[in-house]
């Protein structure tokens, strides 16, 4: 039966007796279901001395449980065309996949088993360690990753968890033991840290029952949450990472901004859209790509975070054009910060963001990501329907105040990775 969500989402939310949260949204896009099990187990929660632990736990968590070995898990998912993805960001580790509706019960059972009782087999730890070290070495050869990670380190200095590379370092990953993984799992993978989101061609009542029974014997104690540490004041710096053999330089330029929970979030969102999102990449792409022909990509992004998230500008340019590109970024950032946006930009951006909400919810995976965010930041189950009014309530003065507060070139940090030609 087709279920229309064109009038807005109608998710059902349930808190299980053990403290886990479940959200189910029925849709009729296709005979398939997207499942996302998100745990508050991101890099914020790893010991400061062991960066990469959360990410590494995500590599090994699905390689053996108390009741299934790695082959049995692989068989159970591969047989049904299901690729389990485990992602780790600052706050969350999420196990997600899409399966056929007819396979939902089986796949949920495997995912619940993986989440609740992984055993972290020693041979699997060593294989995944070698893979992770290879991935870190690949990152070390990638100017885009090098620039982005260096910028995070500049913005969130003195060991702040937001400043760490998600995968950790070769030496930190070499130090991770099975005991570390077991302890991380015990501390962070508990019912109270879990939000299970299911979106697709399923009945909401039955799905909640199934999730309830999949997790009902799990009664681990609630995990204490960890506040995001205060972010030390940024010391503006611009650095160069020499990668002499690369044809192109990557620029990462940015600021610390605000929390997703800040009442000014929508104004900042609109400001960032004008700066580096609208069309090909806002004012930045208009200048760097369209007017000056210097880059294939130039844009800004604004990550929603519990603490003050980063606002990051990225561009990939010919090494000879690095200085010109940085000057262009300074000019656009400074111009927007000082003079604000135009009435036309304001109207277009508001119309665009309001109009883009149905597109964010175009398929099951998009809705699942949206609902996880709604739950994580406590935005409310009717958020997709309230969001247009929240955007319409923002004034141009609020957008300009957001720009003035954040977009000050003298306060920016920047990292350039590539051949010589960066800032001198």
């Amino acid at each position, binding site marked *: 039966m087709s279920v229309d969500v064109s009038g807005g989402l109608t998710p059902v939310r349930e808190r299980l007796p053990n403290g886990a949260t479940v959200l189910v949204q029925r849709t009729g896009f296709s005979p398939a279901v997207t499942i996302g099990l998100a745990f508050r187990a991101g890099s914020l929660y790893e010991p400061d001395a062991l960066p990469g632990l959360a990410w590494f736990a995500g590599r090994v968590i699905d390689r053996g449980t108390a009741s299934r070995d790695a082959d049995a898990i692989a068989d159970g998912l591969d047989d049904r065309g299901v*690729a389990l993805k485990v992602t780790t960001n600052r706050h969350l580790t999420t196990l997600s996949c899409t399966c056929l509706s007819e396979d939902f019960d089986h796949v949920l059972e495997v995912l619940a088993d993986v989440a609740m009782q992984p055993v972290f087999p020693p041979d699997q730890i060593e294989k995944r360690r070698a893979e992770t070290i290879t991935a870190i070495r690949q990152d070390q050869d990638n100017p885009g990753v090098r620039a982005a990670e260096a910028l995070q380190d500049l913005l969130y200095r003195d060991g702040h968890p937001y400043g760490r590379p998600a995968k950790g370092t070769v030496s930190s990953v070499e130090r991770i033991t099975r005991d570390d993984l077991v302890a991380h799992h015990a501390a962070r993978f508990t019912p109270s840290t879990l939000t299970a989101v299911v979106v697709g061609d399923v009945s909401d009542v039955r799905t909640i029952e199934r999730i309830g029974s999949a997790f009902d014997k799990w009664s681990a104690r609630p995990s204490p949450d960890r506040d995001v540490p205060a972010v030390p004041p940024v010391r503006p710096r611009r650095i160069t990472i020499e990668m002499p053999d690369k044809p192109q330089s990557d620029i990462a330029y940015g600021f610390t901004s605000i929390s997703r929970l800040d009442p000014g979030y929508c104004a900042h969102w609109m400001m960032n859209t004008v700066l580096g999102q609208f069309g090909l990449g806002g004012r930045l792409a208009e200048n760097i790509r369209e007017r000056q022909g210097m880059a294939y990509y130039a844009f800004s992004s604004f990550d929603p975070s519990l603490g003050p998230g980063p606002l990051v500008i990225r561009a990939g340019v010919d090494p000879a054009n690095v200085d010109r590109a940085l000057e262009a970024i300074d000019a656009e950032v400074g111009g927007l910060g000082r003079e604000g946006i135009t009435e036309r930009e304001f109207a277009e951006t508001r119309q665009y963001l309001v*109009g883009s909400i*149905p597109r964010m919810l175009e398929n099951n995976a998009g809705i699942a990501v949206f609902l996880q965010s709604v739950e994580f930041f406590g935005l409310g189950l009717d958020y997709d329907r309230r969001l247009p009014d929240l955007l319409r309530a923002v004034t141009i003065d609020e957008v300009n105040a957001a720009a003035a507060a954040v977009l000050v070139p003298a306060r920016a940090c920047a990292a350039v990775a590539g051949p010589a030609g960066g800032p001198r």
Partner: protein
Amino acid sequence: MGTVHTAHLDNGLKLLVKELHTAPLVSVWCWYRVGSGDEQPGCTGVSHWVEHMNFKGTVNIPRDEMKGIVERFGGSWNGYTWIDQTTYLETAGKDALDTLLFIEAERMANGVYDPAECESERTVIMSELQGGENDPDQLLDTEVTASAFRAHPYRHPTIGWIDDLRSMTRDDLYGHYRRHYVPANATLVVVGDVDAEAVLRQAEKHFGGLPPGEPTRRRRPAEPKQLGERRVLIEREGTTAYLKFAWHAPAAADADFFPMLVLDAGLTGAKGLNLWSSFRGAPPQRTARLYTALVERGLASAVSGALLATSEPFLYTVSLTVTEGVSLTRVEEAATAEIDRVRARGLTEAEVDRAKRQLRARLVFENDSVTNVAHQLGYFETVVGPGYFDEIGSRLAAVTAAQVAEVAGRRLAPEVRTVGAFRPLERRA
């Protein structure tokens, strides 16, 4: 798949319309049967450059108004070029339909190709090329593809060779645009919360007056039979070694295509057939032969396979990232040994059944949105031809283990493969 309404305007423009009322959205794709496989030496990359130019304003949509025209409806827009096709898309609120058809009609007939804009875009595309070359695996892919083909134009990268990007002129671009961007060479696909009859009327309004033009005449030289293994070794600064195998693949319409697709699923996991969305994440591959033989044994940190539906025989590639501390030779030997086992004995019945189940599921997953459904309808219509998309399920179901074994033995022979390696050199201090 439900009903797809098919129609032809008098000028030859083909329309495919599908009503999908699951979200208040419409996705419009305009497909041209021209890609980098239709380019001549000296003008490689022209199709892709023309694609870029077609976002830079038309007679009736000034350059400054291009930005914002789709966004007004909350929409996103994009385009891509590959070996057989060039396509443009917008997905936006359903009220945008008339505007989106107007944009595509303008793009087809009224591109401006301002000389200064052509020059500005030259360096943007060179930047795109250089960005790709930052990635050693992509660099290797370009070299392996060029080595695997001697004569067929699939040999050059879609983005073009750098010297051609330096030398092509505005007239080269405009000439390509005028030759190929005509109704008789295009398919317009509309999927979403629309009324099919109304779409046909609106399409007639926007496109009906355009002169038909001619379909692209393909003059692609046949690729001579490969007589021996070819090898490419790139040694450059880097941190990680990569290995790539390429064999000549069947075209989509070839009887070998679906057995080969099942074979790839057995070797590296099933991806599906949606070039737009199915190749972005890892496939279900933990039981796949090359994953268990290489990744599970710690020799490679990643393996992937790529078989795409193409008009003429392209390549089947297997790509490996070598685990830190393992030699390229060891990875090549282990991969070759496993491929030889499959060549000698095929996949088991159970493996073939699993691969087919995986592919059936992936075909559902990759048609989960108006954008994806529209892509798939237009892709197969343009690249392979009418009717093919509807037959994918039955063609897949008909594949047997014997067919898979036969194509493995014949098509994955070492004498017809190209092997590429990227060996990292230590970075200079």
